[in-house]
């Protein structure tokens, strides 16, 4: 079953001769348990692709379906609910709240959403990601790699069906980058989520089940 599906999705910015087709007609689907990479140079439209997939941006044409529900016609409030429930974001700049400890970053999600991981699953998550000792620390006390691992924990904690990662390894050295990809792969397989990683770093494609290449707004399966 397709967890995420895009049907003839198009996105243009501007009008008239200033009109730019950031994303040309795209058909895309992702299955449960797949780790997918979308690679391409900056400005190729991969961020547009990610934000449309994540319900942050509405497409100009076409339909986006998450678990077979069309999200292209929803308003911002409804989209916000979908993002909270179905999607876990891992962002380039760490998406942590500076004044919350690692433990409380996750607890914040309990305040706004039910059906997050229970205590046992959470302990396992801490263990898998190797951040159990960091739970009392603030983001400013963590290294880049540690922050990214906490960001992954945060994305996974809400039990989303899709994880969208935007350059998750951008601020990391190679060893750390591989480590993060390894973690993402393990979590994708064990939690049966769908993970889409957008990156310009082709070294990461070895970890992925499918690789798409984005060139000038056109998405192609490699």
């Amino acid at each position, binding site marked *: 079953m397709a967890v995420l599906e895009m049907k003839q999705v198009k996105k243009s910015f501007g009008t008239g001769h200033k009109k730019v087709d950031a994303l040309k007609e795209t058909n895309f689907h992702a299955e449960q348990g797949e780790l997918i990479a979308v690679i391409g140079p900056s400005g190729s439209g991969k*961020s*547009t692709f*990610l*934000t449309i997939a*994540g319900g*942050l*941006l509405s497409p100009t044409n076409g339909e986006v379906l998450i678990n077979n529900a069309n999200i292209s016609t929803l308003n911002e*409030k409804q989209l*916000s*609910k*979908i*993002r*909270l*429930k179905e*999607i*876990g*974001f891992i*962002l*380039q*700049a760490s*998406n942590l*709240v*500076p*004044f*919350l400890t690692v433990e*409380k970053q996750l*607890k*914040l999600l309990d*305040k*706004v*959403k039910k059906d997050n991981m229970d205590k046992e699953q959470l302990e396992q998550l801490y263990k898998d990601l190797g951040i159990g000792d960091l739970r009392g620390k*603030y983001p400013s006390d963590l290294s880049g790699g540690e922050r990214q691992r906490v960001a992954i924990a945060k994305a996974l904690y809400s039990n989303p069906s899709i994880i969208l990662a*935007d350059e998750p390894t951008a601020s990391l050295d190679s060893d750390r980058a591989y480590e993060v990809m390894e973690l993402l792969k393990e979590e994708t397989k064990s939690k049966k989520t769908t993970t889409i990683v957008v990156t310009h770093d082709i070294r990461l494609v070895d970890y992925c089940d499918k690789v798409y290449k984005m060139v000038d707004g056109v998405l192609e399966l490699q």
Partner: protein
Amino acid sequence: MFLAWNEIMKNKLRFTLIIGVLMLVAYLVFFLSGLANGLASLNREAVDKWDADAIVLTEESDQSLTQSSFAADLVDSINADETAVLGQLNAIAQTDDQKANVSIFGIDSGEFIMPEVTEGSAFTSGNEVIAGDSLKDDGFKLGDTLSLSSTEETLEIVGFTDEARFNAAPVLYTDVETFERVKFGEEAAGTDRQISGFVVRTADLAEVTDEEDLAVIETETFIESLPGYTEQSLTLNFMIYFLFVISSVIVAIFLYVLTVQKISMFGVMKAQGIPSGYLARSVIAQTAILASIGVVVGLGLTLLTGAFLPSAVPVSFDIPTMLIYGMVLIVVAILGAVFSVLTIVKIDPLKAIGG
């Protein structure tokens, strides 16, 4: 609440500064309200003590007790539940080494405006007075003989009573005959009693008198027309109301700056699907926490200062008023947070992701 509190705990210095500013504003508000209250009672406490509904003065006195004078037998024309005669005169009272502005009240000891004696005894024969106990602070004491500025008559303090100041002057209560001798001289005694007004308790002010020369003035109106009273309380209240506006603006600016600094963080949270409403409530909760702490500390500080002030400073704290002002301060602070809430609602989560 979760976000609000955790942020305060993480950035203690920053939020202590904000609380400090709010505390100072609250302190000023409370202190001014104490001063307004103190100055007001300086003028009105003797009148408040009557617990009367109205006072009857001559029409031509223009609501001034000092300027009113008429014969006491007009009491026959008064229709009220309770009526008390009152003669009033301003004078300077002095002993060998003290001098004070006083207000002499000539009353009948059997009527309801007779004060309770807190020290010594009531006046029983002529030229004895019960003095307001604020005179004690000026060095007057029981048994003192007072000579007066306008007459050869002397008065003797035989008792003290509390809360007895009228238009900022301590009151000397005496009988109507003594009042007449002081005001009009020896020869006036024995003729028709001349007094300044009737103090009445009644439910129906319109029915009090049909004498054309007499005016019935509601107690509150009477107080407001005391010289300087309205001007004084308007000035202080204006300052207090202005402080409410100032504190709202201060909170608005502080929170707005803090919110602008956090725009990208809020954006990320919104991208993750945390509702704007939750973030907005968190800012409101934070403001309420900061303002409440500021107000409580300000209140404590005010009462502490009040305890150490010399009695010459006319502050008197009215706790219910202060509680209301404190509440108003918290509410206007929250109004100040509305700006930030609007900013949060408008943040585009897409921008935070840099898409």
